[in-house]
């Protein structure tokens, strides 16, 4: 790769999908648009692979947008954490879209496929932009780019319940984003800068001032809304349950994870560990919410009849694990939180993809209809079971690695209770995962399951790739936990 392109990689990461989005409208023909969008996603993934390679080799990359120097112009800043998030967001985007064509044909009218691709690419742009930018206001803009496109994507769902679900998400998402905007405004008022690194340098001088404290409050609540931290999660279950399968798979795997990334960025890189956690005790505030989220959402998940809705509640619980790791504010805890970002993205993406296969064949994801479906669709449901094991945290799956770090972090802090609670919470996951496996494999086939056939290979292969990766990353952790460890250290060190 030539030097010139390599120097432009950070901006290409965002610009490629951004420019491709309107091109989808021009191409318009279904047979052209889907392969085009898929190709763009894979290209974006390739860029993120090179970026991660560069960062691991040479350290932080700083890119001046339009050649304007950093505190005045917008800076793109790629460190280990950002590169890690870019990698899995673009990777899952590409894999989900490769998986999607059959499911799209079934769930979205062919005349709207080009619009779907446009929205999808815009959503990818927004999520990648949040991860790469080093400018506070830019975070808000990209946040809204991804959010607005995801409202429209969710509203594409086949059943009418998708519409109120998207509307509710829109209202809560906008409130969250506006809270973040207020927080950014107050911080700008105090420091006169929007560059993250610059602000991190100037904040200590004004941290005692009430304006900074209010900014911190607005940001915490706004981000918590966006990442669906219990009890601000009410928008999530319906949105995930009624969205088209492809949208559920992509958004469930990436959107809330990127919001967790924003939390890490603001609380550690900008405000700094000492202010957020030692002075204001953010950890003490987040930990009970995280634990409550894990238990309440897992318990609610057990009673769901709609499996997509069950997975959505499980997502709320999994956000709890990530936030729990962050709330320890130690290297081990953060590693656990960050590696769970990655592992859960793979697991939940794969599980929703398997549900998409079921949806294609059964036109339903209710437990009653799924009775005995394991006989008709053994490969799909075996993949689901594999993902389910990851959710529980069985050894040799990726979920185990996350929980291993989290429990270690709890023991380091001498909080035996948290460690025990973590183990107990896995039992709840066992219950809701087992309910589906039992229904699918050991019940008499339902009317729909009797007529079902195995999902097409074009969908099975990507599903297995993603869920197979969870096993791979459960055994070889060099590129998941290893990178997460580096990212955690970089985050704890703070910005220069």
């Amino acid at each position, binding site marked *: 790769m030539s030097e010139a392109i390599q120097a432009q990689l950070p901006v290409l990461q965002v610009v490629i999908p951004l420019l491709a989005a309107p091109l989808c409208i021009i191409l318009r023909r279904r047979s052209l648009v889907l392969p085009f969008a898929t190709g763009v996603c894979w290209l974006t993934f390739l860029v993120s692979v090179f970026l991660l390679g560069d960062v691991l080799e040479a350290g932080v990359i700083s890119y001046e947008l339009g050649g304007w120097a950093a505190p005045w112009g917008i800076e793109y800043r790629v460190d280990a954490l950002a590169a890690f998030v870019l990698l899995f967001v673009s990777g899952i985007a590409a894999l989900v879209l490769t998986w999607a064509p059959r499911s799209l044909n079934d769930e979205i009218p062919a005349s709207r496929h080009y619009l779907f691709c446009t929205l999808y690419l815009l959503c990818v742009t927004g999520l990648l932009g949040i991860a790469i930018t080093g400018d506070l*206001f830019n975070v*808000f*803009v990209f946040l*809204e780019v991804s959010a*607005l496109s995801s*409202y*429209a994507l969710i*509203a594409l769902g086949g059943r*009418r*319940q998708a*519409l*109120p679900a*998207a*509307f509710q998400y*829109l*209202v809560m998402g*906008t*409130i969250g984003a*506006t809270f973040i*905007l*207020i927080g950014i*405004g107050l911080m*700008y*008022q105090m420091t006169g800068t929007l560059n993250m690194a610059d602000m991190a340098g100037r904040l200590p001088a004004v941290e005692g001032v009430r304006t900074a404290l209010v900014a911190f409050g607005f940001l915490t609540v706004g981000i918590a809304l966006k990442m669906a931290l219990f009890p601000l999660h009410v928008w999530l279950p319906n949105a995930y349950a009624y969205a088209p399968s492809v949208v559920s798979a992509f958004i469930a795997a990436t959107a809330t994870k990127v919001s967790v990334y924003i939390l890490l960025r603001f609380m550690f890189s900008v405000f700094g560990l000492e202010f957020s956690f030692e002075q204001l005790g953010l950890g003490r505030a987040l930990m009970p919410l995280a634990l409550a989220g894990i238990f309440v959402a897992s318990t609610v998940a057990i009673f769901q009849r709609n499996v997509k809705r069950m997975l959505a509640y499980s997502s709320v619980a999994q956000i709890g694990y990530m936030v729990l790791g962050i709330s320890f504010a130690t290297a081990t805890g953060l590693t656990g939180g960050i590696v769970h970002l990655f592992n859960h993205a793979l697991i939940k993406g794969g599980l929703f993809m398997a549900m998409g296969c079921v949806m294609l064949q059964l036109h339903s994801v209710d437990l009653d209809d799924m009775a005995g479906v394991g006989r008709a669709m053994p490969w799909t449901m075996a993949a689901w079971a594999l993902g389910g094991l990851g959710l529980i945290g069985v050894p040799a799956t990726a979920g185990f690695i996350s929980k291993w770090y989290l429990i270690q972090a709890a023991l380091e802090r001498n909080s035996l209770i948290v460690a025990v609670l973590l183990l107990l919470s896995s039992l709840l996951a066992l219950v809701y995962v087992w309910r589906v496996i039992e229904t699918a494999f050991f019940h008499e086939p339902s009317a729909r399951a009797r007529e079902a056939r195995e999902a097409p290979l074009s969908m099975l292969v990507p599903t297995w790739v993603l869920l197979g990766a969870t096993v791979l990353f459960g055994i070889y952790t060099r590129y998941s936990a290893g990178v997460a460890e580096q990212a955690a250290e970089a985050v704890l060190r703070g910005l220069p």
Partner: protein
Amino acid sequence: MTETVLGLYNYWVVIFLMMMGFYIVISRGNLIKKVIGLNIFQSSVFLFYITVGKVSGGTAPIVEEGFEVYSNPLPSVLILTAIVVGVATTSVALSLVVRIREAYETIEEDEIQAQDEAR
């Protein structure tokens, strides 16, 4: 006292609008009213940013002889972007309301919920 009330009256307006918008979003069941509340809520933030940019005694940021103090133009520029985002949000919200009305024949939140639970 007069200093906090009159000297900061912009901020009082911002807080009043913000709370009013927020309250409408939470309390009203009519989806259109929710969208309006959301708009008022966002507008208060626009006003806040513009207030932040004001430098007392400063004039419009155009270089001209005889003026030395200028207001900060950056917040206004930022908020221009945020206004565009607000417009986009409103249009997406309204088009969702139109589709909800087609699907449910009502735009009252409780009636939509009742219809969903009845099935």
